[in-house]
């Protein structure tokens, strides 16, 4: 009976830390340029979401004060 294939300790540690390594696998298939473009699209989205959140809380704060 064969022993199960051992998992590299580094891969195990990253998985335990919460990394979804399938994302890394996807990145490694891409060219370096594609990795940068995909990253920048994610960064842009994150910035837009942050702005939307700031705008939402800026508008909702006075209303919350009035409701008290």
């Amino acid at each position: 009976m064969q022993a199960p294939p051992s998992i590299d300790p580094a891969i195990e540690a990253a998985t335990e830390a919460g990394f979804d390594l399938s994302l890394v696998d996807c990145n490694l298939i891409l060219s370096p340029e594609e990795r940068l473009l995909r990253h920048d699209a994610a960064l842009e989205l994150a910035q837009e979401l942050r702005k939307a959140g700031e705008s939402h809380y800026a508008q909702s704060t006075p209303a919350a004060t009035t409701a008290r």
Partner: protein
Amino acid sequence: MHNLHLLLQRLADAQIDFVVIGGYAGVLHGSSLVTNDLDICAVLTAENIAKLRQAFANLHPVHRMTHKKLSFLDVPPDDTPLKNLYLETDNGIIDVLSTVLGLGDYSRLRKHAVEIPIFGHLCSVISLPDLITAKEAIGREKDLLAVKELRAIAAKRAQS
């Protein structure tokens, strides 16, 4: 608008000698983590500073750490020795460091850097082992977490 790759492209077009470091180098190596800025290591000679000014001239570069966000196009005067630059531009944030904690200066980084073709240029990028060393030297929680992913990437590359 955050287009860090456009900043990188401008640096390469301007023929500045630099090494990509930090989280953006991690992305080039395959990291899934999103970073807010482009970090590079370069020798901040008067010539390189002039090239940087020219490269970012129409992107409104400012010193983001200064209270009044002084324009990089005006400050500091030419021939002022600089160790680091922390800039904000229309296309995002770029930090230019003359040394990297745990590793050393540009020449040290360049020695082990990998050459990666990006947008028609061969760009020097900090090697994966050096990036791990640098992040461990910084030692913040977020860097140590990033190291776990970088080590997994190194393991995957070794397996393939």
